[in-house]
């Protein structure tokens, strides 16, 4: 698998690539440059715009975007200059929208859009989607309990808030589906099986999107408000939260970019 983590020039063979990505082999940088030379500026701009629009539309549901889909639906015959177009799209997102296009799964090449700008409290932009409240409860619970939590604990906690996975909730509908399916597909949570359990048991962890999109410090601050405590009281979590995005200093963009 080390071939995948290419540092400089990309290798021309794709090892261990999944799904439709198998037809897409990474060209070398010189090949990309040659490909770019053949295209006019207008063509490049048009493709960049299309990609930006495509990503914005896919972002509506917050389901991560696969590179294979981008190549199939947007780039098509331009797939050999994928990286260049991606870079330009990223620039557009940052400069025009204040968004970041982040690769949350370097192995499967899956991307999401997050906001570069800090949310302003009390602003009208915050819509108050109730699902966010539910997600907050689960994420907080998982985080404060060490990062891994058996599903039983999550269900019990939610039941105390009148959210029962076995019943239909007036606000959330099928709660179990929302938590184990929708949140998982959006990569906010991960729902993994514990091996050798009979009957089968699952645990919850933070998903790849949550790691990138949710500020642990801010969670702690809110929890501190709720408990009327200084967030530093939870020393271990506080320490962990402080270093959450320290590795993000340059840019959490596509890791294959060089």
């Amino acid at each position: 698998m080390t071939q995948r983590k290419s540092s400089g020039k990309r290798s021309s063979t794709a090892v261990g690539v999944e799904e439709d990505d198998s037809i897409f082999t990474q060209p070398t940088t010189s090949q990309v440059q040659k490909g770019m030379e053949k295209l006019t500026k207008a063509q490049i701009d048009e493709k960049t715009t299309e990609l930006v629009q495509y990503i914005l539309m896919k972002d509506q549901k917050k389901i991560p975007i696969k590179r294979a889909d981008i190549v199939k639906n947007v780039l098509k015959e331009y797939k050999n200059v994928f990286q260049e177009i991606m870079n330009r799209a990223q620039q557009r997102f940052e400069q025009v929208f204040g968004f970041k296009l982040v690769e949350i799964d370097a192995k499967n090449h899956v991307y999401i859009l997050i906001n570069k700008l800090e949310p302003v409290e009390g602003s009208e932009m915050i819509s108050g989607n109730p699902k966010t409240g539910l997600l907050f409860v689960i994420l907080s619970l998982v985080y404060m309990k060490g990062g891994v939590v058996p599903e039983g604990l999550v269900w019990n906690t939610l039941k105390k808030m009148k959210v029962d996975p076995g019943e239909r909730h007036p606000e959330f509908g099928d709660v179990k589906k929302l938590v184990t399916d929708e949140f998982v597909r959006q990569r906010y949570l991960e729902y993994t099986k514990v091996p050798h359990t009979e009957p089968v048991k699952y645990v919850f962890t933070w998903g790849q999107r949550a790691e990138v999109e949710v500020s642990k410090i801010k969670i702690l601050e809110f929890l501190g408000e709720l408990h009327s405590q200084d967030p530093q009281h939870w020393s271990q979590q506080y320490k962990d939260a402080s270093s959450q995005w320290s590795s993000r200093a340059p840019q959490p963009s596509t890791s294959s970019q060089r």
Partner: protein
Amino acid sequence: MKRGRCTGSGDADPPQNGTSDDVMRVRDPEAGASNIDSLPDTNDEVDSAHRRDIRSKYRVLISSIQQNREDMLNNRDNKITEVLDEANTLFKEVHQAREAALDSQLLVVASDLGKEKASQLFSEGLSFDPSTFVQHTLSFMGLNWLEEEGESSDEGAATSHGSLPRNAWHRLARRAEACFQSTPAFHFIYGSFQAEPPPPKPRVERQRKAPTKEAKRIMPTQLKKMEESQQEATEKEVERILGYLQQYHNQDPTSPISYYEFVINPHSFSRTVENIFHTSFLVRDGLARMYMDEDKMPCIGPVEDGMLEEGRASARKQCVISITLQGWRELREDLDIQESMIQPPVTN
């Protein structure tokens, strides 16, 4: 894994154990030597019963871990250590692969549990209690602490009593969203664009079809009308003029009606021509007769019943009457015709 001593259980019972024994014997060459010592039959039964017993004890241990998993996880007691101690004791009597397999299964289950317990160590020192968390959160969401009738649960009053306001989760979300750096979902202001080429096509087709049908329909009806109107017009006119003729005649049956006075319309030449045209039909059909008076001026009069028989044989005289604009004017002046005797038809 300890190599068990094979006490007389070698060759004697291959049908019961099959290949596992062969494996044991292959791995432990020493064991083969001691086979010969024992008496086969009695030792078989005792031994297999003993082994069944061991297996069932292992299964009990495994299920105890699985059933009491939550307890073993959450409690600080040493239940799992006890299980492991029992397993160790049991293992001393394990000689066959079958029991050994159960032993490894037990180890796997126990170590999974141990791993979970170890991960709990991290959270133990963190003083985060889910129940407290729930209480505070519910308060934030605006829970009404109404006292309801009914038993109070052991878990505390937070759960069974009280009701949440309708926007409780919204309230929580508004505050929680500050922790998320999520992008606002992108939507077009006026909704997404949907191309609509298909609907206009049938509409255009239908519109095209409709006019053509109507147009076709119009044509026949119009034609019918025209033919009818022509026929009707002529017939009606002729009848009408006959009416006038008879009317004038009846006013003064003895005095003749001057032909020219009858047909000429002083106001309109074309009407005059029409009148001449229509009166010619009357003469043709034998409904009117023309004759010359003493002054050699043509006169016209309706044909009366008695006159028909006389004139039949000889009444095949034809003449052509023509009139010009000039002639019409002269006649009008000479005869001093002020009004037309035949009123023009009422046009729609």
